[in-house]
């Protein structure tokens, strides 16, 4: 008897759980149109942000003060993005802000970085290729071995699938000598051969300190970045650029963002406000004059223009409509007392994400309870058996009503 009761509870719980996941999902498939997300670029010709906002029904171009521009205006406002087109039309200025506009120099100075919550949360398989950075060859070659930094450094020969003892010992000793605390945590780098040269990897040790590891002619070169004690790195993105000004960017647990410079690994903090890596996307675009950072939140996009000395020049922010600002969002809140999702855009892992609706849901919750009451009365069920069903219909609204309707003797 107890097993059957338990079985019934499990059935009711599963129906509610998956109805709360599936019904809102179907609803949003029908009624959701993604909002237009603005992207701001700091323009050297307008000396203000040039903003582009695209969607399926056309693109808007504007500045913080003025709107109604067209695509041609935008192309000239962001010459570092569109320099090839401008060169072909003879529209590229000779100098901007006193800097000569040479297409090669523009190309060499352009870069982008992106930090997304799912990038930070994603744990890759903890193996990586440590490239030979001074092979004397023009192209980088995939090494034959893979590196792991666990209780010590180990190189596993890919084809033979065995540890290369001599090399492993050599690198373990080099890391230990530099002060690396084993076991290692995550290792970051650019693990592909499509880059002009190799600048090694950045490994986080057991004490959350960061070490730079390069392989040069088979020998380890290890450096402690000596990051401050109050900084716990959660993510590092690297980029090998001929510019050789910085290795990449580093994001701290407290959402501070730093550039890792070539100058003795000095960390340069970006003057940003309101960034939270747990929920926000950061996209950084650098060019010969400025660095522009866009921070995309659910309900707001903000932009920061930074000069090459990493001083803030200008900032801009624009609210964004979320799906609950619209009529379809209000209807969803009225229909469903809560919504469940197992996957979200910010997390690569399956989890349990519930969103409770506002007080407007109470209308349909109460109605569900009333319907449940009449369903039980029609069936002639005594109140003792009807009460749990009515309570379920009230607490879970339409989801509970499915249980009441489908399991007649739900008690």
């Amino acid at each position: 008897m107890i097993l059957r009761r338990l079985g019934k509870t499990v059935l009711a719980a599963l129906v509610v759980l998956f109805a709360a996941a599936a019904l809102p999902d179907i609803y949003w498939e029908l009624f959701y149109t993604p909002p237009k997300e603005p992207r701001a670029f700091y323009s050297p010709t307008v000396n203000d942000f040039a903003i582009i906002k695209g969607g399926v029904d056309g693109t808007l171009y504007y500045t913080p003060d003025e709107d109604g521009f067209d695509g041609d205006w935008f192309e000239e406002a962001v010459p570092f993005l569109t320099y090839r087109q401008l060169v072909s039309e003879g529209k590229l200025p000779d100098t901007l802000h006193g800097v000569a506009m040479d297409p090669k120099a523009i190309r060499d100075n352009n870069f982008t970085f992106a930090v997304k919550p799912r990038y930070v949360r994603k744990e890759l398989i903890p193996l990586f290729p440590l490239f030979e950075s001074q092979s004397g060859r023009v192209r980088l070659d995939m090494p034959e071995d893979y590196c792991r930094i666990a209780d010590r450094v180990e190189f596993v020969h890919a084809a033979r699938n065995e540890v290369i003892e001599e090399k492993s010992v050599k690198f373990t000793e080099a890391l230990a000598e530099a002060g690396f605390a084993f076991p290692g945590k995550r290792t970051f780098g650019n693990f592909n051969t499509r880059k002009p040269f190799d600048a090694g990897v950045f490994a986080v040790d057991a004490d959350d300190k960061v070490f730079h590891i390069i392989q040069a002619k088979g020998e380890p070169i290890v450096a402690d970045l000596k990051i401050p004690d109050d900084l716990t790195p959660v993510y590092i993105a690297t980029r090998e650029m001929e510019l050789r000004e910085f290795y990449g960017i580093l994001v701290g647990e407290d959402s501070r963002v730093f550039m890792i410079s070539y100058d003795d690994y000095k960390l340069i903090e970006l003057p940003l406000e309101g960034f939270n890596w747990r929920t926000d996307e950061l996209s950084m675009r650098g060019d010969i004059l400025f660095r522009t950072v866009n921070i995309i939140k659910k309900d707001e996009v903000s932009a920061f223009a930074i000069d090459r000395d990493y001083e803030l020049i200008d900032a801009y922010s624009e609210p964004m409509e979320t799906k609950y600002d619209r009529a379809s969002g209000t209807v969803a809140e009225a229909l469903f007392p809560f919504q469940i999702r197992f996957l979200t855009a910010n997390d690569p892992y399956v989890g349990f994400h519930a969103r409770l609706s506002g007080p407007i849901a109470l209308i349909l919750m109460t109605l569900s309870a009333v319907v449940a009451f009449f369903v039980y009365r029609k069936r002639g069920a005594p109140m003792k058996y009807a009460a749990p069903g009515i309570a379920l219909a009230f607490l879970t609204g339409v989801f509970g009503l499915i249980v009441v309707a489908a399991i007649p003797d739900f008690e």
Partner: protein
Amino acid sequence: MLFALWYKEWLKTKWTLVAIGAINLLVAAGVYLDLANTMKTVEANVVLMNVVFKEYLYYVDIKYIPALSGLIYAVMQFTPELSQSRLKLTLHLPAPEQKILATTQLIGALELAAIFAIDYLILAATTLAFFPVEVFDSMTVTVAPWFFAGFAAYFVTAAAFVEISWTRRVVIALTGYALVDALFLGVSFNAGNDAFAHAWWAAALVVSATFLLLFVSGFHYKRGIV
């Protein structure tokens, strides 16, 4: 009495078991052969690069096989019972109803578990033969929900089959489908192969709980509660 039940189920399901086992074995062996062949034509470090950074799932062929196995097994096990209401006779044997249902379902679960264990052993041996242990860890976390889906498909199909009311049958089937579907979440290119890394225990718990659904259906079936 229960031993006789075991024996009856064994006689009924042994050929189903052999057929499903053969399909599983072929697919798992295919995973090995495919990978062994790839390792002969592509350098090992490039294959490993694709496994680690490009989420090349060399074992993806096995993905839906456990769920299909569970579904087919439940159909083969319960169709003969439900034609001419044979299960009704079984449920009136001098043994507790829930013990009979639990035994019947346990036999199926164990036979499926044996098949899945062989699948997993082949995948594990294949992985460890060619790749470092980190890849084995990732493979295990990735395939675990697929095998859970096999058990979920079996338990839910059994409950939906034995249920006599069509409304309840549809609700059980839809809910079961949603559960099995959820166990395949997050496995796609660049979306994360080990999607259940932090939630595998929750998935296991929910799937185990579906074992209990048959008691509800069986109760309705024996008493003819529509």
